[in-house]
């Protein structure tokens, strides 16, 4: 899940200062789950914009803003978009970018995109994965240090943690403490011993010119 949060409404009003006839596009995927781009948020946004003197020509909530195929597919869902002079997208940065790619109407974001994370047992958990393109999370008991350690350390903890808390964010447990206890619970402490060298050495890239 892409973790995004709503910009303050004042900032959105500022963005739309010179715009009118606004069309709102929500997103029924991550943004809806995070309550920053589903139907309740989109209709609330419409009302707040109208209260502040903006004309909202309509809205639509595609199943995922990041998979909108064409402008026509949006017209099919709500032809009012043809009258729009500005589009407000209530989705992550990918959704905003995809929609900006299918129209020349100016597109504005209502959200700030933070990380690749998740939601479990009612709790939003940001920064779970660094999207490095080379997944090795199984070596770390399912807790990725590239995504979750502020120093992205692959070979073990830095010297900066105090009482098991992270040097950077003392409210959080040290990621490497969590990895160590998880692997211990799994009986796989052997995985901790793997030495991670630089990719160039790991991959034995040696051109010897």
């Amino acid at each position: 899940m892409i973790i995004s949060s709503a910009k303050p409404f004042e900032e959105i009003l500022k963005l739309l200062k010179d715009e009118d006839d606004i069309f709102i596009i929500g997103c029924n995927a991550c943004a809806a789950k995070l309550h920053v781009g589903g139907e309740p948020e989109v209709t609330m946004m419409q009302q707040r914009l109208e209260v502040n003197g903006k004309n909202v020509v309509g809205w639509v909530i595609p199943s995922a803003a990041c998979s909108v195929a064409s402008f026509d597919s949006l017209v099919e869902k709500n032809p009012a978009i043809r009258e729009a002079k500005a589009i407000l997208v209530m989705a992550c940065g990918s959704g905003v970018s995809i929609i900006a790619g299918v129209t020349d109407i100016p597109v504005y974001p209502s959200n700030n995109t933070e990380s690749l994370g998740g939601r479990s047992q009612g709790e939003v958990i940001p920064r779970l994965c660094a999207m490095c393109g080379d997944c090795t999370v199984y070596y770390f008991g399912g807790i990725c240090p590239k995504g979750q350690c502020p120093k992205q350390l692959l070979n073990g903890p830095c010297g900066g943690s105090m009482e098991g808390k992270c040097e950077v964010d003392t409210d959080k447990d040290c990621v490497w403490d969590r990895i160590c206890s998880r692997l211990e619970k799994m009986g796989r402490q052997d995985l901790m011993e793997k030495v991670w060298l630089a990719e160039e050495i790991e991959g034995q890239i040696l051109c010897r010119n």
Partner: protein
Amino acid sequence: MSRTFKDKLRSKDFLITAEICPPKGTELGEALADAKLIRGFADALNVTDNQRAVMRMSPLAMSKTLLDEGHEVIMQLTCRDRNRLALQSDLLGAYAMGIRNVCVMTGDHTTKGDHPRAKPVYDLDSVQLLGMIKRMKEGYDLAGNKTGHLPDLVVGAVTNTDPLKAGQMMKMRKKVKAGVDFMQTQAVYDITQFEAFMEYADDIDVPVIAGLIPLRSANMALFMNNNIPGIHVPDETIYRMEKAEKPIEEGICICAEAIRELKKMCRGIHIMPVGNHVNTIDILEMAGTGKRNK
């Protein structure tokens, strides 16, 4: 010709290293004067690299200046501020200018220093940096291009000394595996814990140099216990500092006593005073290690 730090590492000498902090500015006078205070007493001077993520003069420039003044230096190099290109170019530059000892570490996070908005790099971690240096010593850069050997480069790393911290100990072993010539430790106050660490690390054939920060007050000890990771000042030491009429002198005594104990356990000590080295020689002489080097 006088013996190098490398020669001394290979000998049975009890080694003394000391920390020199580059200036926040371009005036080198104070740092050079500090180094001069301990000339002939320290076997090598560690030059810190934007220590605690506070921006200062480059350790490369400071190291070269100390070298020109006739000091042997250990240039510290962190992973925080440089990607793998910058790490390699600084290492080549340092070697070309005559710097023969480096000590590598991850580095405190930028958010802890005086430029908290700075982008933290950590392109490599300290174990990966050691692996890269090993390859450079063999004459290749990380991409496999020939760069010429760095045969005399002496490479150190740092470690905490609590043998019960499994993650820290595992990482220390990885550093040894990646290739180190010496280890310098976080400041040691708890001699019993350090002894347990040395027993734990008994199978590791790398000289260990124990870190020391002379205490200046009981408050300093309390502050370090609460704020500096990996440091544990025992209660009885804090009590001694509290009771002392002259706390700085008491701190000197405690440090000298620690050296006498550590001398039996490890290969050397590394003195990192707060401020300058004005008391360092007193400490060394009181500990019976104040003899001048030839």
